[in-house]
């Protein structure tokens, strides 16, 4: 245990929660005076909640999580993000998710990142309270809310300190199930969706291939029909998140060879398949990676792996069109996750800048430290507006036919781009504001920084978004 943890845990016992909060806003010298309990009631308000005990078992706790640990339900931290303009449902989602996440503090995610262990209990906690069904239809046990609500859920998860790792542990369950819910047969829906919502089955999304990254239409995994009864899958997939823990995969594979179709977007089919790891035709290899280490990312190899014919989702050959429905949603969710990460980093950096004293004054008093953080805040706020604009457009487009599909695509891609850049910016500045401590694992910002590369790269690169905007909006000639 580190020295700062010892003192902090003592403080935690003795000082009313609201004083812990105020401490960070004053220079060190005055601290003593403010440590006195001002209102005894506040001290008494700590009933032995299970959540407290659980959190303690998780080991060391950081300042931030201590500050908003609860004696009662209700999130207790004042986050940096301005919440004007959100609907009451969105704010309810944000509050409720923050409550669940408060049981999984930064120390939990730090430990998972080091041990590379899947956060199964986090996934289970969200599943238990029905959150995985947030954007799935009510008839199937979901909540029937939109992508805007799902986005704020993902943002809140990332913002709690769970980062991209926490978000990715449930990410595919939220968006990859969208095409399934829309195009699946009644039997497929009834047999899979309730199990996914309850958390019994986890889902991964199998599109990307080593030889066909952004060029999705050239993917070479094939599903060959066997006498009309079943398919056999052969090929390789890469960057498949959560494949090790998933029971199901939403798989995109070619059912008609590229040479035999009129347009390359045809001949691809979508399947919802079981992952039977004991079958010799299925192999997974975990990829060592830079960040988000708690969740596994994999190479998945299929070799004559049999799947039943009824695993097909929608019509054969129409897989690409179907999957596009999930992609804009994914952009929104990922933008939300990036924002959450950025606000989390900025929160850490500002707390540190208020607290850390050099030359007898808090470093945040220096404009060289303050201004980059102020700028990061403005960028995050701007990206937030773009993100929730895109999410709203996506949701409205389902009922409002005047919203053109490419307008949704432009908004979702722009949001992903802007949020990823703003988050990266905030994380980098957070590390720098911490000075040497920014490089230490215990301060969490290095973990955020490593993870902030993910939304810049995935699910589509910055350059491809710029290409897309150049071509679709500016109508410039395509370069590739």
């Amino acid at each position, binding site marked *: 245990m580190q020295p700062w943890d010892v003192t902090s845990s003592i403080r935690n016992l003795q000082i009313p*929660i*609201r004083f812990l*909060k*105020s401490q960070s806003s004053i220079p060190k010298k005055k601290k*003593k*005076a*403010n*440590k*006195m309990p*001002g209102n005894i*009631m*506040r001290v*008494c*308000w700590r*009933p032995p*909640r*299970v959540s407290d005990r659980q959190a303690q078992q998780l080991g060391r706790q950081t300042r931030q999580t201590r500050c*908003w640990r*609860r*004696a*009662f*339900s*209700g*999130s*207790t*931290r*004042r986050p940096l993000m301005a919440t004007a303009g959100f609907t*009451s449902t969105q704010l*309810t*989602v944000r509050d*409720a998710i923050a*409550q*669940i996440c408060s049981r999984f503090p930064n120390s939990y995610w730090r430990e998972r990142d080091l041990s590379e262990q899947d956060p199964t209990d986090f996934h289970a906690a969200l599943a*238990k*309270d*029905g*959150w995985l*069904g*947030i954007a799935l239809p*009510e008839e199937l*046990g979901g*909540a*029937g*809310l939109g992508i805007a609500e799902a986005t704020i859920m993902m943002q809140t998860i990332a913002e709690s300190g769970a980062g991209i790792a926490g978000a990715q542990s449930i990410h595919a369950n939220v968006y990859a199930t969208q095409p399934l819910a829309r195009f699946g047969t009644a039997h497929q829906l009834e047999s899979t969706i309730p199990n996914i919502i309850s958390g019994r089955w986890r889902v991964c999304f199998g599109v990307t291939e080593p030889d066909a990254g952004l060029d999705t239409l050239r993917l070479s995994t094939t599903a060959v029909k066997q006498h009309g009864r079943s398919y056999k899958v052969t090929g390789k997939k890469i960057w498949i998140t959560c494949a090790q823990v998933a029971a199901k995969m939403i798989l995109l594979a070619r059912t008609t060879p590229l040479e035999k179709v009129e347009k390359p977007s045809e001949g691809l089919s979508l399947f919802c398949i079981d992952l039977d790891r004991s079958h010799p035709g299925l192999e997974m290899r975990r990829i060592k990676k830079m960040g988000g280490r708690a969740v596994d990312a994999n190479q998945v190899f299929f070799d004559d792996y049999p799947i039943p014919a009824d695993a097909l989702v929608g019509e054969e050959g129409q897989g690409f069109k179907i999957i596009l429905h999930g992609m804009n949603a994914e952009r929104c969710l990922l933008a939300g996750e990036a924002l959450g990460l950025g606000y989390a980093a900025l929160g850490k950096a500002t707390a540190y800048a208020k607290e850390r004293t050099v030359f007898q004054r808090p470093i945040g008093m220096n404009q060289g430290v303050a201004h980059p953080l102020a700028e990061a805040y403005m960028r995050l706020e701007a990206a937030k507006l773009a993100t929730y604009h895109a999410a709203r457009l996506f949701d409205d487009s389902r009922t409002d036919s005047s919203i053109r599909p490419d307008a949704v695509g432009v908004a979702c891609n722009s949001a992903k781009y802007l949020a990823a850049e703003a988050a990266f910016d905030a994380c980098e500045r957070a590390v720098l504001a911490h000075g040497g401590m920014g490089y230490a694992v215990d301060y969490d910002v290095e973990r955020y920084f490593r993870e902030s590369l993910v939304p810049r790269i995935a699910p589509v690169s910055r350059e491809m978004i710029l290409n897309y905007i150049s071509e679709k909006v500016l109508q410039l000639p395509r370069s590739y």
Partner: protein
Amino acid sequence: MSALRILVPIKRVIDYAVKPRVNKAQTGVETAGVKHSMNPFDELSVEESVRIREKKSAPGGVEDICVISAGPTKAQDILRTAMAMGADRAIHVEVKEGEDLEPLSVAKLLKTAVEQQKSNLVILGKQSIDDDANQTGQMLAGLLGWPQATQASKVEFGEGDTVSVTREVDGGAETLKAKLPMIITTDLRLNEPRYASLPNIMKAKKKPLEKKTLADFGITAERRLKVLKVTEPPTRQGGGKVDDVDGLISKLKEMGAI
């Protein structure tokens, strides 16, 4: 035993984790733009009511759990929260922002509500954390002429409409027994309020929320008390450090404390 019709009065207050600040005019604390939530003690009341139903601890069963709140339009948020936790329906009594009711007015309002809703058990927080009056439950019991058990840490049901309530007192635990109808006020150790699950949050949107005014209860927002001034407490002076127990003892002796 009669089936329970539980009335749970709840209040929207500044979130317990927010540090309240006195407003510029020194007439009260700043509420604009401050996070509000359900009074924590009221969460305990809602939770307890729902648990009585779920655990079937009352022999006659629970027929109805009705939450009621008097406050600005925003108070509907906490009513929805209570319904997401498991209350059946809600009543919102519109009171303009800044026109806060005093405990006696609230008790009078609740008396009428109890009569209208035919409640036979009222479970309410022992106090709300904004003005910490700790009066409403007691006044309501007085107005109704019902037995009261305040600061409950345990509620159990017996035969023939009897209810045993354990409350923590200085010397240990005190157990009171009374017959329905009665008033119970909740204290911290009673239970641990649940998180509302997403399906329940969605269901709560469809549960009935009745809107009423003070006039429906024959009440006006008149005040008997006048707030003269609200100020921040003086800044505390820092203490000194002693090296060891002997140092502490001699310091205490020096101060004449022992």
